[in-house]
């Protein structure tokens, strides 16, 4: 009798376990990871993954990598504003606390970004240590529609993912068709300045300037070589003489407009100095995630007003409603775009 009871309970457990553990998933690192059929809690390893999970399924987000600031929270759904902060799992060490990660009881951990051997082995390590499936997703900008669909299927929100992916495809298609018609000579030379003094920029191939390349503009700092972020001198910028300056910090935008040292640069003379909007997530670079889609529309309006018929305000409202699920008021819209559009 006892034996029979045991057998029945084992059979029951096996069926039960079979329901909970589910399908294999091949991630961008070529790892095959067993993931549950129904994913209801997602922990994100880095900022791009947090944005991606938020736009697809905000109710499945367990927390943030970095606590959103007050300014950011205003543009996020109320339900996610006060989620806990878990820190970054990326890199050896990182700031995420393994026990806090386990206490969040996530069904899966998602990391979006560059996929290389370091991240593959790190994912294996964390997965082995915690027993939580750890999935790597390729975060390159050109693959945005595929990434949205892939992760949407993973999270069981395919319909919403399809909607967002279509938007991304339309954006990229409009962009590529529009750019093709702009002759090489009419594509502006752009300098992107970071930091309070604006003397930090990205070299050719830098992920920070990925969407500048996508919109076909020339990064003047590419002349200084290939690589990531770097510091340059004012002399170099004077030599490059950019036609447009994009400023990661509004302080630098202000300084560039008023500082006599910058006064002779073509962009300053023409009044073409713009801060890059960065709320709730960066429009231009950080983090390098789907948040940059609206940056493309913004750059089209800014750099090619003739080639693209962009109604920027309507586009921003639509993007925020579709992706971030917030209705922008006109006042909020003005805050977002302050100084970032040509004066008309």
């Amino acid at each position, binding site marked *: 009798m006892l034996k029979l009871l045991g057998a029945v309970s084992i059979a029951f457990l096996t069926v039960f376990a079979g329901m909970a553990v589910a399908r294999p998933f091949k991630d961008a690192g070529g790892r095959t990871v067993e993931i549950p059929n129904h994913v209801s809690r997602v922990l994100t390893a880095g900022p791009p993954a947090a944005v991606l999970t938020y736009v697809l399924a905000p109710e499945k987000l367990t927390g943030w990598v970095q606590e959103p600031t007050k300014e950011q929270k205003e543009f996020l759904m109320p339900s996610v504003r006060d989620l806990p902060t878990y820190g970054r799992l990326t*890199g*050896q*060490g*990182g*700031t995420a606390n393994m*026990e*806090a990660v*386990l206490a969040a009881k996530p069904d899966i951990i998602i990391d979006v970004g*560059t996929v290389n051997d370091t991240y593959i082995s790190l994912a294996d390590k964390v997965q082995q240590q*915690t027993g939580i499936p750890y999935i790597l997703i390729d975060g390159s900008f050109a693959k945005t529609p595929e990434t949205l669909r892939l992760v949407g299927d993973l999270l069981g929100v395919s319909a919403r993912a399809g909607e967002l992916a279509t938007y991304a495809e339309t954006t990229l298609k409009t962009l590529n068709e529009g750019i093709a018609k702009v002759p090489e000579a009419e594509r502006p030379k752009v300098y992107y300045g970071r930091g309070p003094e604006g003397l930090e920029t990205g070299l050719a191939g830098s992920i920070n300037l990925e969407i500048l390349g996508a919109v076909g503009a020339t990064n003047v700092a590419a002349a200084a070589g290939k690589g990531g972020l770097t510091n340059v001198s004012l002399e170099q910028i004077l030599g490059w003489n950019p036609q447009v300056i994009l400023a990661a910090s509004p302080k630098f935008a202000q300084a560039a407009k008023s500082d006599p040292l910058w006064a002779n640069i073509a962009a300053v003379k023409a009044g073409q100095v713009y801060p890059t909007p960065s709320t709730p997530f960066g429009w231009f670079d950080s983090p390098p995630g789907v948040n940059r889609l609206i940056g493309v529309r913004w750059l089209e309006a800014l750099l090619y007003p003739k080639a693209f018929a962009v109604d920027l305000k309507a586009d921003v409202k639509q993007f925020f409603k579709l992706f971030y699920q917030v209705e922008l008021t006109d006042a909020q819209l003005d805050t977002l775009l302050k100084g970032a559009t040509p004066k008309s």
Partner: protein
Amino acid sequence: MKDSAENDGSLKLIVYSIAGLMALAMLSMAIGKYFVSPSSILSVLLSGITGDTSGIDPIQSTVIWNVRLPRVAAGLLIGASLAAAGATYQGLFRNPLVSPDILGVSAGASLGAVLAIFLEMPVPVIQASSFCGGLLAVGAVYGVGAAVRNRDPVLTLVLAGVAIGAVVGAGISLIKILADPYDQLPAITYWLLGSLTAVTRGDVGSILPAVLIGFVPLILLRWRMNVMTLGDEEAQTLGVDTRLTRSVLIAGATLITAASVSIAGIVGWIGLVIPHIARLLVGPDFRKLLPASIMLGGAYMLIVDTLARSIARIEIPLGILTAVVGAPFFLWLLASGRKGWS
């Protein structure tokens, strides 16, 4: 007669310290972000030994076996290693400002790790590269020291260490500039600040042989170490081959430091300050200083790592905490300590 009484006394002290350390380790096992009751900790630990996992919460089991136990073990091992290496270096160079970094082991290990992160290598390669980097840097410094024969050997070593450390530091800075700001730079920064957050049992196992081998000369040569602190000339008159003794001791201390740094990143301060604290407590006799440094180092690292994983929601890098917790304590000891440097 007096000697044996003293030996009995120190034996007792060692037994007490080990018991204290065990208690501290148990306490650390009970503290963390994921609540596990003390009785559950015991049953989880027992289940791991007996293999009977019925009635055990799998998440609790993961927390205890895969997160806390490796961290406690790594903390004890690394704290003890860095402090022992520090005590050895300070004695060898007869200088209280010396830490295990003096011959460039930390800098070399940093460069090895940073380079491997930059080249997008898997984690085990990063650790191996860091380990080799540490050994290579000290090897280079020692090579320079051996090549320059007509000067004070200790001074030559220290100066060569400073010079090679500077070059290695420049290499690290260069890679930081070239690294990808989203993916690699944070990884490099966290690595340089030290952390045990991702340590697994496999990591601890992988450095254990190197640490044990490194400890052998330190323990065997503890009496000669005392003679070395008298200075080369006097040590030679007492019949000690200073050159050989020094190289063997440096090799041992370097091996345990490089192994520790390869899995924990740079954890500063312990190697500098723990030997001082030990010296203030037991005096400069290396036969007492070494065990005292080992115990204190292990305990200190354990406390710091427990704080690192429990005081905030996110992890606090060890490099920050070792200094913040250690500096005030050290200053207090300095002001009230009884025993001196020599």
